[in-house]
């Protein structure tokens, strides 16, 4: 290295500079919107292949709007980063379907148009679902369907233990049911308390069901909710593996037939039919009785900001088509979601009585980023799942863990 002559070093710098210039030239040419004719749609449904009904619906909506639609399905966690990068590079898709809490992040980034700009009609949508897509009085998208959490139960296990699921109305009756199941040598309940957004999502029904608010993580009600979970682990009502469980692994535990209850979502309904035992669902009880507000899951259809604003009119037609009553019914049936429109919810419940519990749960549900929390929610949520993990793993008591969580959420 030391033997390099000065001229050689100069030449090396020249080559580097040339390379950098060439690299720059290449990247600037990619700023043009891809495919002038086709309208790009990104969705988080990679499970749907090109011959699926979902893609057929996208094509059909494109045809009726007079354009061709080019669709790409991404993994849902991947899509947030993809959407942010695309917004940075100025090549966002024309229509973007994303998980509802991501909307406030993308809106904060200035990557989404509001309904004032894109003229979407959202008046038919249920207010509690639409809340996740609203910030400071502006609406950034339309819900395409909603899911939420409830308790699945194993009928055989409950019958053997002499528990009537209809009698489970509050935490006390749930605890006594868990005790009875345990006495029969079966396992109580499984859920997911993993250290990601999924863990917060699963904890929220108990958190809100205790009367706690996300703005005050260390309230006595919040401590009571975390104590409920911690005691389940201590008493053996719930397996220790919940700390690492995703909602999928938690479902696999329930599917073994050893568990009486599993906290899981609408999206498992198709799998529930394949279980080797009869099952039922009840709403997650609140501390003092009645159904607890569960967080809403499900995606929003949004129209990202484009350089050529002329494209919004066609994008608006596409979204309106996707979220029209008949198409919502078809889409939400394939996704096993509950529709965001009351009239369509009625139709779903009448065609499939099993969905009645879910329709009620969705009506009682709350958006995570609602209450004008917006982009404050991700910080609160991270503090919350960390506290849940700390308490369940025995690192801290529920009170200490939540006090630390409140400090972390307000500090940042």
């Amino acid at each position: 290295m030391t033997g390099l002559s000065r001229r050689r070093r100069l030449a090396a710098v020249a080559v580097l500079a040339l390379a950098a210039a060439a690299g720059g030239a290449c990247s600037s040419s990619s700023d043009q919107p891809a495919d002038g004719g086709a309208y790009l749609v990104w969705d988080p449904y990679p499970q749907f292949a090109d011959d699926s009904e979902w893609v057929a619906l996208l094509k059909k909506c494109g045809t009726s709007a007079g354009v061709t639609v080019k669709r790409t399905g991404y993994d849902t966690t991947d899509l947030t980063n993809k959407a942010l990068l695309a917004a940075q590079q100025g090549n966002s898709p024309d229509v973007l379907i994303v998980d509802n809490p991501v909307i406030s992040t993308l809106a904060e980034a200035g990557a989404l148009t509001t309904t004032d700009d894109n003229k979407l009609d959202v008046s038919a949508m249920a207010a509690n679902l639409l809340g996740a897509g609203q910030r400071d009085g502006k609406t950034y998208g339309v819900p395409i369907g909603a899911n939420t959490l409830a308790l699945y139960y194993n009928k055989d296990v409950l019958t053997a233990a002499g528990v009537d699921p209809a009698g489970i109305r509050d935490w006390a009756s749930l605890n006594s049911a868990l005790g009875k199941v345990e006495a029969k040598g079966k396992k109580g309940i499984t859920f997911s308390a993993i250290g990601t957004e999924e863990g917060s999502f699963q904890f929220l029904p108990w958190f809100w069901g205790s009367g706690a608010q996300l703005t005050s993580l260390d309230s006595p009600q919040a401590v009571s909710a975390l104590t409920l979970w911690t005691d389940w682990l201590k008493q053996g009502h719930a397996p220790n593996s919940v700390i690492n469980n995703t909602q999928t692994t938690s479902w696999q535990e329930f599917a073994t037939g050893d568990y009486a209850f599993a906290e899981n979502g609408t999206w498992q309904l198709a799998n529930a039919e394949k279980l080797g035992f009869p099952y039922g669902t009840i709403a997650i009880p609140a501390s003092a009785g009645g159904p607890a507000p569960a967080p809403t899951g499900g995606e929003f259809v949004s129209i990202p900001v484009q350089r050529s604003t002329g494209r919004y009119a066609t994008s608006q037609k596409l979204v309106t088509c996707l979220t029209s009553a008949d198409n919502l019914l078809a889409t939400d049936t394939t996704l096993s979601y509950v529709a965001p429109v009351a009239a369509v919810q009625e139709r779903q419940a009448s065609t499939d009585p099993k969905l009645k519990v879910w329709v009620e749960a969705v009506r009682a549900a709350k958006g995570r980023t609602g209450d004008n929390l917006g982009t404050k929610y991700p910080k609160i949520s991270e503090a919350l799942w960390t506290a849940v993990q700390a308490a369940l793993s025995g690192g801290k008591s529920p009170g200490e863990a939540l006090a630390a969580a409140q400090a972390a959420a307000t500090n940042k």
Partner: protein
Amino acid sequence: MVPPTATSTAVPGPGEAATAAPPGSPPSRARRPSRWLAWGFLAPVTLYLATFYAYPLYRNVELSLREYTVRSFVQGGAPFAGLDNYRTVLTDQAFGSTLTHTLIFTAASLAFQFGIGMALALFFHQHFPLSRTLRALILVPWLLPLIVSASTWTWLLNSDSGLVNAALGVLGVDPVNWLTSPGWSITSVIIANIWIGIPFNLVILHSGLQSIPAEVYEASALDGATGWQRFWSITFPLLRPVSAITLLLGLIYTLKVFDIIWIMTKGGPTNSSATLATWSYRLGFGNLLPEFGPGAAVGNLLIVLALIAGLGYIRIERRQQLR
């Protein structure tokens, strides 16, 4: 960016350059055209390195020196923050424990991977029936995709239905919460990482053993050296260059191990198995609201650690050559 035909012409590049300007020959003006030709051949690979290595690295450094929010990430205009992101990271209460975990994880993984790899290499150096088949089997962890290995370990170490706890139960030992207790999670990911790293050490050390001339062993046998003496006086010193490069490569691989930990524990519970690599990812992508600045800062600290190790290696090697 680089047309595919250009890459094929790039291959003879370094060779051409070497023949055009042999090291030590005085540069002469008459040779200039061939020198430009040499640089021309060098251009594709330089372009490649600049585009895919230098530029991302520069961007990462820039990212860590500015205060990025999602808004300024998309719209531009993030204010220059100097070393603020580094300060945030260094004063974070998670920093101390994360750095300790990184060091423990790296040191323990390297020690056991190297130790076991060396023992197996010596074992397979003696030819015996089935030695080739067995050696091939030991390579399996290396061939498996990390997602498969890590998921398999997750199942094995599951608290309630894992095979490891079932086996412990047979022996009358109480079940251990391998992945879900703060006291055990780092040990569990280290065990999985050692298992994955053994084949690499085995292969390199085994090939190193092949290059030790048999005469040396014969001479020592004539002198009546015991097996133990032969290892410490012949094998180990002669393997030193190979050992050094194995350890250095292992160090760089292990420092940045991310997938195994993320799949098995997500760095949890409560950061008890978090390393700098998982922390960087969590800051940048693990939350709905990414913190790109601090995430990039942690990533850069990791690069600096690897760089220090690399420089240390070069220094040791140079000192050995001088001797």
